[in-house]
């Protein structure tokens, strides 16, 4: 009988555990949509304060335009216009985010009138020198990790996500707290083995045009002692930003009416 009940429970486990992961994946999918895909298009002013271990501060100010193409977890286009620091003022960074293949990236350098294609494809490199990675700003693919729902409180779904290709990333796993109402990720701990070396926190959010929107967030790197706080303002949704804005023409001619 003991053997039978053991086999039964093993079968139960085999049946239930995929369902359990499915649930984790479902929650993560909603979280990615809430975090990166709100509205059909979005425009926002961003202010980054990067502080290193010695307390030295650096500032990045930019305006970002984002357009969803089709599905809520599909391709997107980003247009990022820099205001600060002044040596990068008027530079534009453009990304066509792809799902199955590497993103396409361009950089416009006004001092040379140069439209440069960027070969760098590693999404886990610093975005403009901050503690945020490209991937933190534009989203990590749902299918790149297995997402396991490990706990649930009144307020949060708590997931443990493990990379499917650990050789491509610098973390072993990450634990993520997702707000049950809005599906906005409130806290993420990135582990290197058992050590939490990187920590994300949503500091402020607000309902804008019906979309719950992060207005302030922080990323800390415990190894370097650096942190970045990003604040968003002038967030606007559904401006009908046309697809053509994300092209060479508008790298040269900044579409300020959408800012």
């Amino acid at each position, binding site marked *: 009988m003991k053997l039978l009940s053991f086999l039964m429970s093993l079968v139960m486990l085999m049946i239930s555990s995929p369902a359990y992961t499915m649930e984790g994946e479902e929650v993560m999918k909603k979280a990615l949509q809430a975090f990166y895909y709100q509205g059909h298009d979005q425009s926002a002013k961003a202010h980054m304060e*990067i502080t*290193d271990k010695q307390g*030295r501060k*650096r*500032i990045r100010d930019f305006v970002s335009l984002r357009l969803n193409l089709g599905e809520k977890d599909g391709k997107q286009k980003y247009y990022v216009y820099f205001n*600060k*620091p*002044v*040596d990068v*003022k008027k530079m534009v960074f453009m990304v*066509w985010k792809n799902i199955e*293949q*590497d993103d*396409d990236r361009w950089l416009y*350098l006004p*001092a*040379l*009138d*140069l*439209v440069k*294609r*960027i*070969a*760098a*494809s*590693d999404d886990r*490199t*610093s975005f*403009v*020198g901050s503690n945020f990675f490209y991937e933190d700003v534009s989203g990590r693919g749902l299918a790149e990790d297995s997402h396991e729902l490990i706990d649930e409180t009144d307020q949060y779904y708590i997931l443990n996500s493990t990379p499917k290709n650990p050789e491509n990333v610098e973390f072993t796993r990450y634990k993520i707290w997702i707000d049950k109402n809005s599906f906005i990720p409130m806290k993420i701990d990135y582990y290197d083995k058992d050590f939490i070396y990187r920590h994300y926190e949503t500091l402020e959010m607000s309902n804008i045009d019906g979309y719950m929107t992060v207005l302030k967030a922080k990323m800390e790197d415990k190894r*370097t002692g*650096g942190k970045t706080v990003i604040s968003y303002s002038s967030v606007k949704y559904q401006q009908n930003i046309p697809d*053509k804005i994300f*092209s*060479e*023409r508008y790298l*040269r*001619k900044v579409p*300020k009416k959408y800012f």
Partner: protein
Amino acid sequence: MLNKYSVLFIGVLSVLFSSVSANDFNANTEILEFNGYLETRVGVRIMDDARQKDASIGEVRLQLETEQEFDEVTLNIVTDFVYDPVLDVYPPDLENGEGVIDLRQANIVMSPVDFMDIKLGRQLLTWGTGDLLFINDLFAKDWNSFLIGRDVEYLKAPTDAIKVSMFFNVLNVDIVYTPVFDSDRFIDGNRITFFDRMTNTFRGRDQPLSVDKPEDAFDDDELSLRLFRSFGANEVAFYYYHGFWKSPAGVNPLSGNGLFPALEVYGASIRGTVAGGIGYAEVGLYKSDDSAASNPLSRNSELRLLMGYERELALELTGSLQYYVENKQDYDDYANSLPDDSIVDDKNRQVITVRFTKLMLQQELNVSFFNFYSTTDKDGFARFVTSYKLSDDLKVESGFNYFYGKYQYTFYAQFEDSSNIYAAIRYAF
């Protein structure tokens, strides 16, 4: 006679005032906002060159930039104020970028109809795919700035032109019309010594090159065209140029002055994603002056080809490789036309370039190495630049430019004695 500046100036002003009504001025009463930087840059030669000063560069530069938006028109002005005791020339020469003022940009931008952008006035222009190699980008370059270690933005010299861009579903068109030929700021001996094949000697600031430049407004003009479109993230372009060789490519047999023979270029380029990186190819047929084929004093027609590939090699490290060739179209005529004992170039001048760029310390430290090597001329040019941002406003930079080669008369090797190291500090505001 109207000179080019009065032509452009009147053009800019009349368009500006016709499109800006009095009401617009009331709506835009913000105080002019300026950005820019203050920079000191010094450098020395690492070889002895009796024809030049020991200092390769020594200057203080203030750049001021402002942008004014009126209703339908944006006005851009970028100007540099330069104190440069190495060149030691102070009256402003806006055309050659010498003297205390170097006007980089003074233009207006507007979109009279939805599918059209117009940029009129002094502007910087770039197109094409190469990395520090240019085939269809026949806009003015400042080779002196490039070789003495100014910021790479100064490789581009401004052009006084009207650029009309039109965007359609199937194709986009750029038309750039330059009423008066804008040459490169070419190597003339004043800053960088060069090898003069006519006299078989080096020429420095003691005997700089004089030129006869085509400069009749609307007669000695330039036309540059680009037809381009994207297929997804892959870009295809066709180019046409009608004008003159941008640096001296001929000699006046009587005066010995440099000449700019007529030039027509037909070209094409593609660029896209290849094997996890960016791949590109560009071609251009340079049709020189009709008589050039058998005229030893005039540069041959050439077919130029470029292929390049760039990709990320490791975290914050990118590498690129380019292959470039200049093929003389009438090689036999060229070889036969040369006097005895002349230096005879290869039919195909081939160049390979490599670049490595590494970002470190949260991207505040940038290290870049670029090397041109010609397998046919057996010469090369190595560029190393490293910059570090002490703060958002303050940047220090240092680098070297090293020229080498087997023979003293080839393209890069002739500058061997101008090899230099430099350092700069820049405060941006």
